[in-house]
């Protein structure tokens, strides 16, 4: 199994530092997502790994082989790193089968690998079609099959689903994840869509301003983000100012249990909306429903606490409320705090 190791990768474009010392590990056979807002440097990282850009400093190793580093720059076509670009970029003059077979030798083509990967992505029997005869989702499946076909040591997926409709996107994510796993591929997915990263990847590396701020499993990332910015970037977050002492923190939601018992003094309190529960418990805080967003399976309810602080709670879709309703709310479980005053949400 091949492992990708990126160490202290740096890349500047003129005055802009696109990569400011990136460290990243992709264990063999796993899918790692690089998640970040646009302009964070994630696409530059991908292009440096593919070999389309030269690193200014740092190294890229794949399966123990140095691809890029001081005095070394393996050409893109000798890296064994196949990419799936944003818009698929199928060769318009080649049939689906010829597209998929593009990276294969004659023997492999004859051995039926084309049909095998087409079946893997759910397009069995469409080999003779031309790209323009396919829907957007099918084109993207062909692009994935084409990258999978030569069994490259590493696959790079550059926001491969961003051009598709929301409904199509969810289905395709699952299928591509399954195809990658069945083929034992090692893959790096670049995306700005947090639900895509969390639902598909074994590991998620969050990038901001050219550096990886946190790399963790999706569950760990969601539950224990390293800072307020990351917390708000990977999901809905309630961030409140508070004061910690002796394993508890005092904030607008009351005195709450803190994960890190050592925390002391002024801090930022982080609560996920699903940690807020509606209860008749005596300790619960009275509040007023200010607004709500209905999502079917659940609803996000904006609450005014009585001391004019606003928080968001997640409730089941069947939990019917209307603006102005009086409720009582409490926090379930322990919360995470970071030293320093609360920062505003991501811009």
């Amino acid at each position, binding site marked *: 199994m091949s492992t990708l190791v990126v160490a202290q990768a740096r890349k500047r474009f003129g005055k802009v530092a696109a990569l400011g010392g990136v460290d990243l590990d992709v264990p063999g056979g796993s899918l790692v997502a690089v998640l970040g807002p646009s302009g964070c440097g994630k696409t530059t990282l991908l292009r440096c790994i*593919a*070999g*389309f850009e030269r690193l200014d400093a740092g190294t890229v190793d794949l399966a123990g082989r140095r691809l890029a580093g001081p005095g070394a720059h393996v*050409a*893109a*076509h*000798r*890296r*064994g*790193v*196949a*990419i799936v*670009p944003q*818009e698929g*970029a199928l*060769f*318009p*003059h080649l049939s689906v089968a010829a597209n998929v077979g*593009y*990276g294969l030798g004659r023997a492999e083509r004859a051995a039926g690998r084309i049909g095998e990967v087409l079946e893997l992505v759910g397009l069995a029997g469409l080999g003779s079609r031309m790209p323009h005869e396919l829907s957007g989702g099918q084109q993207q499946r062909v692009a994935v099959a*084409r*990258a999978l076909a*030569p069994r*490259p040591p590493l696959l*790079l997926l550059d926001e491969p689903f961003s051009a598709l409709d929301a409904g199509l996107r969810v289905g395709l994510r699952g299928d591509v994840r399954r195809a990658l796993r069945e083929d034992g591929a090692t893959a790096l997915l670049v995306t700005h869509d947090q639900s895509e990263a969390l639902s598909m990847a074994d590991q998620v590396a969050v990038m901001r301003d050219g550096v990886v701020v946190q790399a963790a499993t999706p569950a760990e990332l969601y539950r224990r983000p390293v800072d307020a910015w990351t917390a708000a970037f990977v999901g809905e977050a309630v961030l409140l100012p508070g004061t910690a002492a002796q394993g508890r923190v005092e904030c607008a939601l009351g005195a709450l249990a803190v994960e890190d018992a050592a925390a002391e003094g002024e801090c930022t309190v982080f609560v996920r909306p699903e940690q807020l529960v509606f209860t008749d418990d005596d300790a619960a805080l009275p509040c007023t429903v200010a607004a709500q967003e209905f999502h079917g399976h659940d609803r996000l309810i904006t609450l005014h606490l009585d001391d004019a602080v606003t928080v968001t709670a997640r409730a089941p879709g069947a939990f019917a409320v209307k603006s102005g309703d009086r409720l009582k709310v409490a926090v379930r479980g322990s919360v995470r705090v970071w030293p320093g005053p609360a920062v505003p949400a991501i811009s």
Partner: protein
Amino acid sequence: MPRPILLCGALIAAAVALIPLVYLGVRVAEAGGERIAEELFTERVAVLAVRSLGLAAVVTAACVLLGVATAFLVTRTDLPARRAFTVLAALPLAVPTYIAAFTWVSSMREFEGFWAAALVLTACSYPYVFLPVAAALTGADAAAEEVSRSLGRGPWRTFRAVTLRQIRPAVAGGALLVALYVLSDFGAVSILRTDTFTRAIFVAFNMGFDRTGALVLSSVLVVLTVLLLTGESATRRRHERYAPLGGARRRANPIGLGPWRWVAATGLLGVAAVALGVPAVSLTGRLLEGTSRPEWIDLVTAAGNSLWLSAAGAALTLALALPLGLLVARAPGRLSAVLERLSYLAHALPGIVVGLSLVFFGINVAFALYQTAWLLALGYAVLFLPLALTAVIGAAAQSPPALEQVAASLGRGRLSVLRTVTLPLTLPGIGAGAALVFLTCMKELPATLLLRPTGVDTLATELWTKTTVAAYAAAAPSAALLVALSAIPTWLIASRTGILDKNGPA
């Protein structure tokens, strides 16, 4: 492809495109102020200027009226046989003006002078307005007009406030093309004996070998052309190129003309009769008069010369356009943009000026080229470089870098990517561009007249020579052949605007 080679090629292309302009400037400066003033401030130059500009103004106004009206009728109304009328309105482009002039002169005595030239030039040039305006009307989003109607404006006010505003860039662009074309036209005005700058330049050069006179007249023509170009870009408002918002566009419901539709159809038929009927009937008549055996031999020789001279011109043009086009498409930047602009500059120069300046360039600088086919090929390259450039840039866009990167990521080396991806995707576009340049070279007249090696006749010059001695029947086969050849690029241009598509106006 390594950049330095591209850059070198691009610099050479831009340099070649600038030869005529630079050489013209150098020669005129050499003549000295006094000599220039002597040639310039004469009654004759004033008369020429008034006549040239007057002709350009009259023809442009007529073309705008005719072009916009026709475009509106075929795209927005329930006119009968709209598709047929669309084709009829595009076809006059296939008739070179000197051939149209020839057909009128050969079928009507005393058909000459300013108004004759205005009629022929209008009939041949109104597609320059019709095609872009029809394309703009077809492409314009009906939603904007519907919004205007829903906000309480009637159809006529909506047309003025919304539709006309949307098509104004197309009208202005078409009008500019017509005006530039009329200023540079040589064949039609000469055959119809209308003294404009182009004809005066040719006469000055041909009769008296009056170099300074011809050069000064050329410079005035260049100045007029440049004034026209800057005037147009100065009056063009910013943000006038409207991008359609959103993807799905619907076309407007056609306006019912009632009984007027038959009046409109009759009018368009009349226009087609003037623009296409007269040339067709006259040519057929002359062809039926028959041609003698020695004339057939001349014709075959001329066709052969046309073929290989145009092939040489197209090859040279493409060789110059390839590096520049690839540089513009793949390494966009300030330098490539400047080089591109420079090479377009010569396109606005009248063929007669390019020809004249290259003749003097050949005599004084590159004598080895003088009286060879290569000087003529160079002339073609200067004139039609932008045509080839557009084709190369368009073709390069067919193979975006993303595709080549995917190919490289799948393990293919540079040569393999070139063979399997880049060439298959770009060759059709480049080939079409080469064909377009080739056909345009075939019908070019003024530069060919000035630059061809002595004694070498092409179809165009053969037609010219026969017409000047009133040997109309002998000229007819060349004319017919040239019209047939010109129809191909016309079809290409018209189909590219999209108005001939199935979901076009018909």
